């Protein structure tokens, strides 16, 4: 048995830690993340508040844990919806070809002409800043890239002889798509989903940072950083810990993503 690669190990530990923090944060935090305590305003990290408190005296650690829960489920739902929608469209257009393919891909390419975050910003202007708005906006913004990659995979698979073999056996097109095309898209989709989780988490944090994400007082790492800006000089920890959380999470996902890609799909290296 081969030892797991160091990047896989480190990545799993970090991502595992995040999942535990998010799970625990959903049911228990040291303090109520929303409880205001003006006596403990801007308290430095110490025994009572391990990571200090913010300008309203709210416990930073508790808020970080609650933020992890929020970010995790928003990102997860976004990735799932983008993957499901993108796969459905990608498999359909890649396998059916013809004018339907051309029309859908023309629209898809036009949507890709918006940088991802810009499209999300535009959609947020319409749907409004709330968790479901974010999921809808980011999900729509990332679906075109999934479609593109899935379609590419399907087009590659179509050239394989095992697809022709399925036709020679007399299998219908829909059976071939379901039994032979779709299962072979799983590996590249796993690779994509892993990296996408990172992109979405980053985008969600950025939107929160801009004040277009989950509205306060509910904590997210992004809006905590944004709120910390006026107090940076007195309370540097407010600006450090949330950012550290985002960076560590992204590092873990990137490492894990590289490891998954090396294992499943050596051809996608580095994208």
């Amino acid at each position, binding site marked *: 048995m081969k030892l797991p690669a160091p990047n896989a190990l480190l990545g799993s530990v970090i991502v595992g830690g995040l999942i535990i923090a998010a799970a625990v944060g959903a049911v228990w935090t040291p303090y109520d993340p929303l409880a205001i305590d003006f006596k403990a305003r801007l308290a430095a990290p110490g025994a009572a508040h391990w990571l200090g408190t913010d300008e309203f005296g709210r416990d930073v650690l508790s808020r970080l844990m609650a933020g992890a829960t929020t970010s995790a489920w928003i990102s997860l739902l976004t990735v799932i919806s983008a993957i499901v929608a993108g796969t459905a469209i990608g498999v359909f257009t890649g396998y059916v070809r013809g004018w339907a393919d051309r029309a859908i891909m023309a629209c898809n390419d036009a949507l890709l002409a918006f940088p991802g975050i810009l499209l999300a910003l535009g959609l947020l202007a319409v749907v409004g800043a709330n968790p479901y708005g974010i999921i809808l906006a980011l999900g729509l913004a990332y679906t075109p890239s999934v479609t593109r990659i899935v379609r590419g995979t399907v087009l590659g698979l179509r050239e394989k002889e095992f697809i*022709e073999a*399925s036709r*020679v*056996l*007399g299998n219908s097109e829909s059976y071939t798509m379901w039994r032979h095309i779709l299962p072979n898209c*799983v590996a590249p989709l796993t690779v994509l989903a892993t990296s996408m989780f990172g992109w979405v988490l980053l985008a969600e944090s950025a939107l929160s940072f801009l004040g277009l994400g989950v509205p306060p007082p509910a904590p997210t790492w992004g809006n905590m950083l944004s709120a910390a800006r006026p107090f940076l000089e007195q309370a540097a920890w407010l600006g450090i810990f949330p950012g550290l959380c985002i960076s560590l999470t992204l590092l873990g996902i990137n490492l894990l993503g590289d490891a998954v890609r090396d294992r499943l799909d050596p051809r996608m290296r580095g994208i």
Partner: protein
Amino acid sequence: MSTPPNLLDIRTLSLAVAGLGRRVVNDVSLSVAPGEIVGIVGESGSGKTLVARTVMGLTPPAIRRIAGSIVFEGRDLSSVPAEELRSLRGARIGMVFQEPMTSLNPSMTIGRQLDEGLALHRALDAAARRRLILDMLTRVGIRDPEHAFEAYPHQFSGGMRQRMMLASVMLLEPALLIADEPTTALDAVVQREVIELMVELTRARGTAVLMISHDLAMVARYTGRIIVMREGEIVEQGRTEDLLRCPQHPYTRKLLAAMPHRLPARPRPASAPVVEVRQLVVDYPGRQRLFRREPGKRALHGIDLAVRPREVVGVVGGSGSGKTTLGRCIAGLLKPSGGEILFNGRPIHRSDAGWKAYRLNCQMVFQDPYSSLDPRMTIGELVGEALRLVPGMSAAEKASRVRDVLAEVGLGEAFATRYPHELSGGQRQRVAIARAVVRRPSFVIADEPVSALDVTVRAQVLELFAELQSRHGFSCLFISHDLGVVEQVADRVVVMQHGRIVEAGDRDSLFDRPQHPYTRLLLSAIPALETTAEGGVRLKWRFDDAPLA
């Protein structure tokens, strides 16, 4: 008594994979005299390529030399400083690679690529170098060298690129040319042209050649001495004639026995054809461009063909001859633009009631066993899938049929739960054959079923195929570029060129008395075998004088 010093002496060379310690080349010793042409023959995994690359100092980073020395022109290359080794590369030792499509830099003009080596190793001015290059391009048969000089590799065919590759190496007049499968990626006819050009150029300049190939017949034709390798070791070496006439090592005998040979003709009852093709035409539509539609291409120009029960019809031709299109069209993967396909005397259309019966009775074996099996399914599922649409068969019957057929193709039940990536190429092709015959079809199309396989594995798979064919009695359309293989399996042969049948007839009459010049040209690339008393073979080359196209 003094023998001339050897140009290259490899002594007790051993190579291993770093880290794993697995030996990939073990205790190999060989020598090449100046001007001599030596062949190294072996199947994949024999280590033949690694030995050749070690001479150039171009082994992959994971390979370590653990013993032995390489002496070239009296100098031990392992103790030579890197700078000096580089001055030998290209100038004294040249190398030709297998894949003409990737061995030239796509983003550099041919002229610059050829000039590079000259500029490095020769003290000549630019004009003199250009003259030399144009001269060499003319010698290797490039029609417009001035144009080629400024052109990029993608503007030329594989055969042309391999000629340019040869020009690039021979320009520097090396003392030793290492040719690693130099023609494997080319069509049979082009193969012979390129290899004869190589032999001619090297003979003219007294360059020694180390020719590495899996193709024993090709190596035997042009070399004076042959080295046979297997699993990193040399099993036998000797003068080509002797080695062929009386091979010493069992593996060499196995290799010789694996060369395709003609079997006695089988009696064929005259009965109505199972599958018949009349005036079949296939057009590939031109691609729609922005302003115009590119002209389409007619791939098949009215093909007539009939396959009778229990008969194997071989279809041969070079690439672009339309043989694969014919197979795919009969298999129903392509819609013909004209003509008709008849099954048991009735025309077949996709909408017909007869289509389903045809679909169940016509199966196909594909070329590439690495691409023809769905990597996400087990062997049992893959073979079982073929029974999915068979009417009136219970699950138990299907399971037992799968078991039986796996045993028939020599894999056994244990393989049913494995995945394709756990199997070797030969085993995969057995699975593909099992999938094709499990339904007991009356007609099987085999498109280059053995061309991706190693020589000895190829022989086994061909034997299996012939056995299944005689047991189950299906008719077969056997498509191949390799006339040797077709000579072994086919009852009747059809020769195709440019989408037309140029000659058709019984195997014996077609191979012994070919009428069409193209058939003669194809035949000139393969040897006829005569078994010798010592258990070896003698190769006879047919139509050696056939003009090269």
